[in-house]
């Protein structure tokens, strides 16, 4: 063999004649590909079912372009407010009021204005009722014109004349042939009407689309919204109709003449809004709307750390509105207390288990593993049974006379209840890593220390304890990570003072429907957990997580 290699002196060849190096690389690549092919389905599964939702949540915490936000539901306002300088202290001009008028009117028809109201209410209290009121009151502005046009000619309050005026002849024909049950023909504007009555045509188009797509009603039967009349007035005021000869020319000309008379009653938009609610003349409201009219916002995050945007920049909220800082602090503090009590209780047990003979240790291990395997709900309900005022512990204490019947201890629906129950629930997660570290500590170091004259305490503290610290570290991080995200137990035994940030997140998802804030709070919590997870991976290694001994 040695002879041949020396003779050829070229690269080593595999059996099929390719160089060995290349052949090896090929085999290695095939191996890698096979491994990836085996992992790929699961990876894809986890990415779709788990990572994508988390990413979605992160996105939601800054997203402000959904329906029900200023950007999503009041696009004209968001656009118009771009030119307004919020720091001058002057109210926005008429163009902005005009945009708000259209936006809220359309939103109210779509029943979205209350959602914008609630969205802004997170930033400025009172917005919710303001928007609800405004949605109801905006008709007052349009009706000023609507009534006058109707008095002039009742046809102005009918569906068909409007449809003839605004719609294209083709559309009108198919509309007239429409019968119930068929799909409605999509609306088309008549040629030239957009030049003749630009504003009216624009809002009528929105009205028509809404009737056809949302309400599925015939435009021939539906009188237009009051805002259409307002726009008609504006167009008539500004335009010249003497040469108009299209459909309903008489109606239009008569109305044009009416608008030009001195008796024709008009109302400035600003006054109309003031009549609905004086808040519309408050500069602070406009500042809030402008601040939250972008499609991405830091507002939810600011809210989650008790701050808000003000014209002067970012600032802390009023003292009485700061709740999340307190909640985060409480979550951290209680998780630390729970972790600490777990260390105190787990250390002796783990030490005992690690130093007992195998058979006894395995038996006692069952006492640790049984709670670990028992349903969380079972353990939580057990603690509810134990801790409540008419519960087992209080009954026993009263029976043996330590506490009076009228002075039963309050151990539930407060922080104490949460701490006791969660310490119990998380204790196995501390004992198991500690045990696995302690059972690898060789006993002869302590013996050596003692034979060198160390006292019991010194040999424990200077020799044994330092070797067991990795177990404490692993267990503590695990317990802490689990504790700060806990929801069920604090919800049931925590009352008002013993709840965590998770309970607030759940509240915002299911009760207050402030999903953005829930997402922002969740993102902050997630960041905290990921930092701890990273630390855990560095200290323990994620591959070394052990389950059940």
């Amino acid at each position, binding site marked *: 063999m040695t002879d041949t290699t020396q003779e050829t002196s070229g690269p080593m060849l595999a059996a099929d004649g390719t160089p060995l190096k290349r052949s090896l690389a090929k085999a290695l690549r095939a*191996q890698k590909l*096979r*491994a*990836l*092919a*085996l*992992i790929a*389905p*699961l*990876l894809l*599964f*986890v990415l779709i*079912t*788990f*990572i994508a*939702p*988390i*990413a*979605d*949540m992160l996105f939601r915490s800054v997203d402000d372009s959904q329906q029900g936000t200023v950007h999503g539901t009041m696009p004209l306002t968001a656009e118009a407010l771009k030119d307004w300088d919020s720091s001058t202290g002057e109210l926005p001009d008429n163009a902005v009021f005009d945009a708000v008028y259209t936006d809220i009117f359309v939103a109210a028809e779509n029943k979205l204005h209350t959602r914008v109201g609630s969205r802004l209410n997170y930033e400025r209290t009172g917005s919710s009722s303001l928007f609800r009121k405004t949605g109801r009151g905006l008709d007052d502005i349009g009706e000023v014109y609507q009534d006058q046009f109707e008095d002039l000619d009742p046809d102005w309050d009918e569906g068909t004349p409007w449809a003839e005026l605004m719609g294209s002849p083709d559309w009108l024909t198919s509309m007239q042939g429409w019968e119930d049950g068929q799909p409605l023909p999509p609306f088309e504007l008549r040629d030239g009407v957009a030049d003749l009555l630009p504003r009216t045509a624009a809002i009528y188009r929105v009205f028509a689309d809404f009737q056809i797509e949302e309400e599925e009603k015939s435009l021939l039967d539906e009188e237009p919204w009051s805002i259409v009349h307002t726009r008609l007035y504006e167009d008539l005021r500004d335009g010249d109709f003497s040469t108009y000869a299209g459909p309903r020319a008489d109606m239009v000309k008569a109305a044009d003449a009416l608008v030009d008379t001195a008796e024709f009653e008009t109302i400035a938009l600003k006054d109309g809004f003031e009549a609905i609610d004086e808040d519309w003349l408050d500069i602070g409201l406009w500042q809030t709307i402008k601040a939250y009219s972008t499609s991405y916002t830091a507002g939810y995050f600011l809210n989650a750390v008790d701050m808000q945007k003000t014209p002067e920049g970012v600032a802390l909220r009023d003292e009485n509105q700061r709740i999340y800082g307190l909640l985060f602090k409480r979550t951290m503090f209680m998780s630390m207390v729970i972790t600490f009590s777990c260390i105190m209780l787990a250390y002796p*047990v783990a030490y*005992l288990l690690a130093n007992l003979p195998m058979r006894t240790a395995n038996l006692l291990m069952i006492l640790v*593993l*049984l709670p670990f395997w*028992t*349903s*969380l*709900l*079972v353990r939580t*309900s*057990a603690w509810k*049974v*134990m801790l409540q005022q*008419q*519960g*087992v512990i209080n*009954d026993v204490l009263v029976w*043996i*006379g330590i506490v009076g019947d009228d002075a039963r201890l309050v151990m539930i629906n407060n922080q104490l209840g949460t701490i006791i129950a969660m310490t*119990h629930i998380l204790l196995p997660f501390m004992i198991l890593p500690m045990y696995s570290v302690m059972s690898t500590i060789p006993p002869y170091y302590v013996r050596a220390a003692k034979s060198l004259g160390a006292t*019991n305490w010194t040999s424990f503290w200077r020799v044994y304890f330092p070797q067991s610290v990795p177990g404490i570290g692993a267990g503590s991080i695990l317990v802490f*990570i689990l504790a*700060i995200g*806990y*929801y069920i137990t604090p919800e*049931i035994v925590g009352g008002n003072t013993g709840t965590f940030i998770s309970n607030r*997140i759940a509240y915002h*998802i299911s009760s207050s429907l402030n999903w953005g804030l*829930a*997402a922002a709070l*969740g993102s902050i*919590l*997630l960041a905290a*957990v990921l930092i701890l997870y990273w630390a855990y991976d560095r200290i323990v290694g*994620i*591959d070394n*997580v*052990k389950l*059940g*001994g």
Partner: protein
Amino acid sequence: MAVETQAVKRPIQFVAPVAGASGAFAGVFVGAANGSVLLGLLLGFGILATIAVVLLEVLDPGLEKTAKWVLFAAMAAAGFLLGGLPGLVVGGLFGWFFGWFIYWLGMGRYRVPLPPYLTAGQVLWHYGFRVICGSIFVFLITPILVVMPLSFNAQDFFTFTPEMLRFDPAGYSLKHYRDFFTSSEWQQALRNSLIIAPLATVLSVSFGTLAAIGLSGEHVPFRRAIMAILISPMIVPLIISAAGMYFFYSRIGLQGTLLGVVLAHAALGIPFVIITVTATLVGFDRSLTRAAANMGADPVTTFFRVQMPLILPGVISGGLFAFITSFDEVVVVIFVGSARQQTLPWQMFTGLREQISPTILAVATILVIISIALLTTVELLRRRSEKMRGLSPG
């Protein structure tokens, strides 16, 4: 040969006061239950010290068994006089314990398992430490044990009624179990749990096992990153997973569907499968698959005939973990599911929040029994797999 410590009789001047002290401790509780703490304390001390003197000094050591029985009977009778049936039980327990304790102490038997050179302080610490550990074990196990008898309560109370303490049969009933088995809500919840958990388990076990085999190869690119992603459902707090899934699944129309809940639970179970199966694969001898391939088996045959039987214990216990994860899970199902997917834990959660009925305790007892069964299975599997891999004798 190891040095054996001999049991040496202890002086009565030491034993009597210690026995008296333990008697005083017990006496405090008996006294408190009967009105006077101080009297109980003094009487307990006196009685126990006297008993210790009588048993150890007066009686012949050969009469130990008889003496213990007499003490047991006497204490039980005294307890019955003081507190009826519960008193009988407590008294009997006291009698049994003190009989054992006095002889254990007086005859110096407590020294036997310890090295002879230990000082008195070290001996005290040795047993004191065990008492501390014992009380922590009590803390761990009591809540679970307390639930069981309470589930047989005849009343709708979450605590022991006087009838139960008197062992009056009228105080016990199976009515909460009957409620559970006849209530349509609970049965629907049970059915949902039994549909969702197995489906989620099958999903996570089949994907998870394949991936674990892939991950256990020697040359896996981005191994750490992939592992971190696959383990993340276990680390991310449930409320965050639940929130994210709620948002995302409503976007793609899975929110409120059975499929959505199953997928979510499968994702949560995957880390457990990955961890247990990769741990099993650490001990797997790769030359076995090579040998199979050498003899002409294709990869699929090799997998099912050679690899699978060997890693099966790991796969099964991973599956059990995944099952219990889904079976116990409540946060995600609350958000991702709708009322039609209400599972057992969800029903319990609602019940606990609104305090409707102690049927919860009956369900809890059933669940404890299920978890004992699962725990036993997992432990047996673990031992079997360790034995197969030669990691532990036994």
